[in-house]
């Protein structure tokens, strides 16, 4: 569990999910440093993975490159992450 600190807009994390026919939808958002929020975030994270989703965090490297980081567990989400994007797992077409 993260330590408590001053609440700022930047400390919020959003869980987004790609949906057919909708684009992305906001699943939930909260401050991981608040235990109630963190419990909700963890529950939603597990629910999405149970539904077969992959979870990715968009990142930016110091040299400006942008990449994504696949996370398989809530604890793997980088502390500075602002959003986690859930999308269906890949299948051979």
């Amino acid at each position, binding site marked *: 569990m993260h330590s408590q600190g001053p609440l700022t807009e930047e400390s919020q994390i959003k869980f*987004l999910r*790609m*949906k*057919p*026919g*909708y*684009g*992305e939808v906001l699943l939930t958002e909260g401050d991981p440093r608040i235990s109630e929020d963190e419990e909700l975030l963890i529950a939603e994270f597990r629910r999405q993975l149970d*539904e*077969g989703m*992959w979870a*990715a965090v*968009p990142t*930016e490297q110091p040299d*400006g*490159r*942008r*990449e*994504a*980081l*696949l996370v398989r567990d809530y604890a793997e989400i980088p502390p500075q992450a602002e959003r986690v*994007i859930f*999308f*269906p*797992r*890949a*299948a*051979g*077409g």
Partner: protein
Amino acid sequence: MLLALIALAFVAAALGAPLVVRCVRRWTGWFTHRRAVAPPTAAYDPGRERRAEQRARQLLRSCVNDVEWAMYRDLGFIRVAGRKARSESRPGAGPSAPAPYAYLVYPLKPIVAYVPGTGRLLSEYCVEFPDLTGGGATRLPPSDDVLAKWMALTSDESRVIGSANMHLVGRQHDCARVRRDLWRLSEWERRGEGTSASLRTRPPA
């Protein structure tokens, strides 16, 4: 005689009335029940897919860098460097050395692998991201499909390539069109819209 016939008609109507009422009740009850259990049909919304695609484009734009977004906006696909090109541990490879391989990521079409230095087409990887959790459509909007491929390739390339069906280029893509896209990409970069030298595409021979 006429009076007797009229009297008989009245008697017959009186006897048959309960039967008629029962049939009418049964029919109206069946009809209202059908109306109650029939699933509500959503009104057709011609703008729904378009709005979904607009949202998907905004999300894609917020995730990729400016060059990749401009490439997608102008050319309709995104190039992603292969893992070996992205890794910094390439002994002897200077900043201008051509990347060993890269991918062209198209919306709702297979990923194409090619050699940026020569423009040689390697293979196409058929991969989808079907959402099977809902009861309706399973296909993501085109720009979400591109973003899903981009996220999968930049985070765990071997995983997504391993789950794809690999074919020689030409199964779903038109080779001539892909070569034309590479030429368009090289022209786009030549005009300075460009990218790092290591990924600069030469027009296919």
